[in-house]
């Protein structure tokens, strides 16, 4: 598998996949996609990289700590749920900023933050699976 073309291809693919996964994440609210699918695509990119270069190099190069991703993902989701409390709303209530609409990303709101949490967690989970099992 160590052919240079493939290696080059994968190196190029990783950022592409990451961007695509982010795209899936943010469009999820209005079209098929979302944090879960985005996270999966994200992790597929690094899985490919791992298949080619091994776990150690992947971890070193991209400073990926799956466990941290999991923890941050969860924390992010919880925080997105806590934010509405300061606005006097219930836990996890979706708060939206109505005036601003960012292109591609849509309106910023806590559900988006929540979805990012999902994204991080799924990415972390799948990567941890791949890392753990690949090293075996």
């Amino acid at each position: 598998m160590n052919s240079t073309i493939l290696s080059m291809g994968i190196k190029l693919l990783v950022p592409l996949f990451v961007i695509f996964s982010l795209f899936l994440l943010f469009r999820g609210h209005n079209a098929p996609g979302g944090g879960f699918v985005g996270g999966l695509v994200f992790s597929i990119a690094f899985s490919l990289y791992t298949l080619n270069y091994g776990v150690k190099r992947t971890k070193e190069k991209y400073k990926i700590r799956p466990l941290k991703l999991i923890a941050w993902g969860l924390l992010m989701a919880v925080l997105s749920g806590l934010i509405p409390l300061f606005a006097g709303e219930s836990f996890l209530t979706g708060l939206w900023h109505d005036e601003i609409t960012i292109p591609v990303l849509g309106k910023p709101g806590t559900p988006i933050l929540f979805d990012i949490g999902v994204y991080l967690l799924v990415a972390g989970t799948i990567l941890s699976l791949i890392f753990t099992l690949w090293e075996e």
Partner: protein
Amino acid sequence: MLTTILIGFLLAVLLPWLYKFFKANTGRFLAVFPAAAFVWFATKHNQIAAGGIVKEAYNWMPGLGVSLDFKLDGLSLLFAFLISGIGAIVLLYAGTYMKAYEKTDRFFVALMIFMASMLGLVLSDNIISLFVFWELTSFSSYFLIGFSHEKEESRGAALKALLITAGGGLALLAGLILLGIGGETNTISELLMRGDQIADSGFLHVAMMLIIVGCFTKSAQFPFHFWLPAAMAAPTPVSAYLHSATMVKAGIYLLARMSPLFNGTGNWNTTLLVVGGITMLMGASTAVIQSDLKKILAYTTVSALGLLTMLLGIGTEIAIQAAVVFILAHALYKGALFLLAGIIDHQTGTRNIRKLGKLFKKMPYTGTAVIIASLSMAGIPPLFGFISKELIYASTIDMVINSPLTTSAFFIAGVLITAAAGILSYKVFFGKRNKLESQPTEAPFSLVAGPLLMAVIAVTLGISSRFISPLLNQASLAVMPENIELQLSLWHGINTELIMSMATIFIGYLTFLFIYLNPKFIASIKVSDKIKTSSVYDRTISTVVEISKRVTIIIQNGNLRIYVFVLIAVFSLLSLWVLKDFSVPSISILWSDFRIYDIVIGLIMIAACFYAVMAKSRLLAIALLGVVGYGVAFIFIMFGAPDLAITQILIETITVVIFVLVLWKLPKFLIFTESFIKFRYFMISIVFGGLMTWIVMIVTQYPLESHLKAYFAENSYLLAKGKNVVNVILVDFRSLDTLGEMVVLGIAAIGIYALVKFNKTGKKEEL
């Protein structure tokens, strides 16, 4: 009264510290408690003897009708005197006697718990609190019998006593609760007046029989009696106190207490009479062939308990009076005799009467006390035992039916007990020779004083019985409210009772002589194991254990497939039972509207599933699994669930990848041959699948109006700002589910990491 009981429990709790302080004097210190209680009860004597009662009431669990109601009447006071009086003597005695043992603090803890509970039992006026104290006496008895717990025998005896009494306790509990339900109160004094109401509820007889069972186990009635002789494994003070004077009388107490309610109804009288009679005769006849002093006493105690039960069963005025009087007489002489047996054991090192003899000169005080107590036991005037025996005969003679039979039963038992008394006193103290290795000396005063005092009381009460008459009269009124007044005296003139008493003594003497002169013959008598209820007990216990082992091996067989099989079978049977009300949906609608690729996909999936079942290669099976998974995704696409389809495809891919990563180094499938078992599994699988199909069809034939669906369609964009409704539900409407799902995934990741990497080499790895 509550204070008294609580002090008792408090002393038990504090004992470890008290023991450190008082050490060997703990017993003497503790004796202050029952002595003080005795004095307190004595101050109430005149009031009670005049027909008054003392009541106390405290809430405990009012929601359940459980309260700490205490009521002191004649019967309770009689028992309270016995418990506190004999308790004080026993504690003094134990203070010296237990010096030979280790860890006596534990002994005293149990003894104090017992004393307090026993007081609570006889003072309670609430069925539930009575039961609480009742069980506590069983509980403390368990620890006292098992005091020498390193001996197998002690442990077995303790367990026997506990299982029998607590088992009976469960029956008693049910009986008491039924009474409470029937009488709509838990207060005993109220219940006793609501006989008609309880009878109307239909619970009276069931409750009665259950209570009788409870009382019989506690008071060692046939066929439950065998735990009592076994309980002689306990240190002697315990035998004297619990297993002759007080605890075993708890059953008698409760029978007496409930008499106003049950006497004359149903099988009460017959049951008590018959069981009591058997117990009495069996106990008396077994007693005379024993060689162990404590066993002799134990069986005479069984006999006495049988006699008491009989008297309550006879249930006439005189019988009740006789019972009350005999409770006192028996407690005095039997308690004393046990303590004295302990002294003999303590001083000579044996309790085997075959080895004992000629002790009087060496142990004059002990001897005197034994003789007095034995004479009381034999019913020889002017001792208190004589008065009680007179009354017993009087009660049988005026029975309406079965008088001759009952009278002769009493007579035979009386004869045997007299003989036993002879063995205890004459054989041990004046017998021809002893076979002791060492020369015994008289026991210290602290040991002899107590039993001697009890012997003296037996004499005093015999001569001046009128002091005790008012109290006993009140006690008998408590058992039978309309009873005639009790008048005790030694001399009633020459009448049938007197003649019978004399005859009993005379023939008892002859019997004693026979036993005394033919020790070899007596020793050769063996009771067959087959008729011993103790061996029935042993067999029952081992059978229960054996059955439970067999059942457990079948049920908990360790075979995962069978567990799943049972689960599916239970589900299928239950569903079939419910589904029998539904018709099978007609198949014709099947062909109404379908597209050709539906069928193709369906068939592919079914085929893939089928070959996955049959596959002999692991990789093939996994690949086929993938086919099924993608098929599912395809169905999602067809029915408007693109998100599901994407997820399904991605997940399916990852699952297959994981499978391959994990499994590819494993050896090939083992081929297991098991076709005949497989048929069972095959059938249940088909049934299960069929049921699920049927259920889907049944449920979907009804129309569904989901207001949730409508709400989401309406508000998903307007309120939740999202056009992909599924995603909006996931991150907004039902974001909590998603949060949970995230945690599940995270844990799964940790779990897989831990599973694969776990090692004990201490090598740290960062996840």
